């Protein structure tokens, strides 16, 4: 019992940097995972990945001018993400181009621009932080930022919940009774960008999408309604963060990959053992009902 306490609780009690990392990661789980559920239900999972790449040049511009500081890099990432999301969203809504193709076009342009900007300053080891994050070095500024993002996201989800569900379930119906369809879509894209930007402090631009998508994809195997699915995704996210941080602490692994790999383990487990997973649906049931 004592050993268990030493192993699981003590690191978070003894070290301030572990506490900050835990608080930041838990806030991120609460806000990014439900957003990930909607991203998955809209079949836009890979769009999250594209958005993560699109954020890079904005963060790089902030880095180029101000060095490794959270506010300029976050604002830069936010700007780049919003431009790409709005541009791709507008092209897909106003022309025959579908969302996936326009998103791919915009993020590739954005990514090439990012690489170009990075090369202006030459290679720099600090840039590794941008790409892969530093959850163990979250400062007060970063925690406040993540907290604000989580508060905005949860508030927006509560307000727009029914609209988001309607937009996913039957977009043509929503268009026939209300003009809210396109605005709701853009609000949602803004939430995606906001959470990816919030995550890149902790996990880096490339891995922050992992905390958004993996718990959501895992929750799909357990829940058959949206509300429980979002709750479960947030729980899975929180569990992966705790697991990842402990792994990182005890085995001296980089924290970002440890968190995402923990989420990946939950996902693989869910595929097999979930109530809607392989075992439950593929194994022939011995008996069935008469009606």
């Amino acid at each position, binding site marked *: 019992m004592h050993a268990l306490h030493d192993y699981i609780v003590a690191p978070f009690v003894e070290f301030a940097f572990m506490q900050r990392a835990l608080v930041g990661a838990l806030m991120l789980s609460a806000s990014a995972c439900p957003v990930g559920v909607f991203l998955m*239900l809209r079949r836009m999972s890979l769009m999250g990945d594209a958005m993560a790449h699109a954020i890079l040049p904005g963060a790089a511009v902030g880095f180029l001018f101000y060095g490794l500081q959270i506010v300029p890099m976050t604002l830069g990432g936010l700007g780049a993400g919003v431009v790409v999301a709005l541009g791709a969203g507008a092209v897909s809504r106003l022309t025959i181009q579908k969302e996936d193709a326009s998103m791919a076009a915009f993020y590739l342009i954005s990514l090439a621009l990012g690489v170009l900007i990075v090369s202006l300053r030459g290679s720099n080891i600090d840039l590794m932080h941008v790409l892969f994050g530093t959850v163990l070095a979250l400062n007060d500024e970063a925690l406040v930022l993540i907290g604000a993002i989580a508060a905005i996201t949860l508030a927006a989800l509560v*307000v*727009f919940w*029914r*609209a988001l*569900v*309607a937009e*996913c*379930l*039957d*977009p*043509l*119906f*929503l*268009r*026939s*009774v*209300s003009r*809210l369809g396109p605005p709701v879509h853009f609000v949602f894209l803004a939430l995606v960008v906001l959470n990816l930007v919030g995550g890149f402090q902790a996990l880096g631009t490339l891995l922050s999408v992992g905390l958004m998508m993996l718990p959501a994809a895992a929750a*799909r195997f357990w*829940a*058959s*309604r*949206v509300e429980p*699915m979002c709750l479960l995704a947030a729980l899975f996210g929180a569990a992966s963060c705790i697991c990842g941080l402990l792994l990182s602490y005890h085995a001296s692994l980089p924290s970002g990959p440890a968190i995402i790999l923990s989420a990946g383990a939950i996902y693989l487990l869910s595929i097999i053992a979930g109530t809607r997973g392989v075992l439950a649906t593929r194994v022939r049931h011995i008996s069935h009902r008469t009606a």
Partner: protein
Amino acid sequence: MDRMDACVTFEDLTLGYNRHPAVHHLSGSVRKGSLTALVGANGSGKSTLLKGIVGVLQPMSGVCRVAPGTSLAYLPQQSELDRSFPARVVDLVSLGLWPRRGLLGRLRPEDFEAVATALSAVGLDGFGKRPIDTLSGGQLQRALFARVLVQDADLILLDEPFNAIDARTVADLVGLIMRWHGERRTVVVVVHDLDLVRQHFPEALLLARRPVAWGDARSTLAPENLLRARQFNEAWDDDAPWCAPGDDHPHAGHRHDGDAHRKGAA
């Protein structure tokens, strides 16, 4: 017809895609409280006309006017409904509450009652908690009719609601349409089964890109009208001349505003 009496008014309405008309120069109006069958071959512009009324398709020329204050329920032929979405039948039917509750309004006890009443009216008692991906085609259609019921709209547009539906379900759904007609709602239904139209619908509009006949259902569906409707060419003609004032059809107040469109069949 008295303007006050019209629910939907078309004034020289042309709707279409890529400058090719799908509904060509339609004028007239749908009376409040009328029940109209929209009839015509595939590609004759029936669904396009409904999209024009709903407003999801902008006119190429002319005007489609829905009387102010009219609430509208639309059941499309090709629904964009995502059947793999983790929703229950009640969630789907509750979408019909949107016009009443909007974005911010919370659902009230009477709303849940309205949903339950609608489900029982379409014969889906006890289906409320079923996930929508477990419904059969007919059950899903009944659920969508329940959503229209919940919408409680003045103008109801149904696009081929009887496709791939068994006889008993058709009979039940026709019963619902008759009930709406009895409640003085304006109903427009796209139907392919002409016997069904003759049997149940007082009025019909026969389309073949342009209106062929419009009025009493039995006389609209007279053999000579059906023959004329069959003689139109469904395909687009890229060499068709630009439709301009002074052509073979009447052009009351016809305007193209420089955005000329092609006549589909010359």
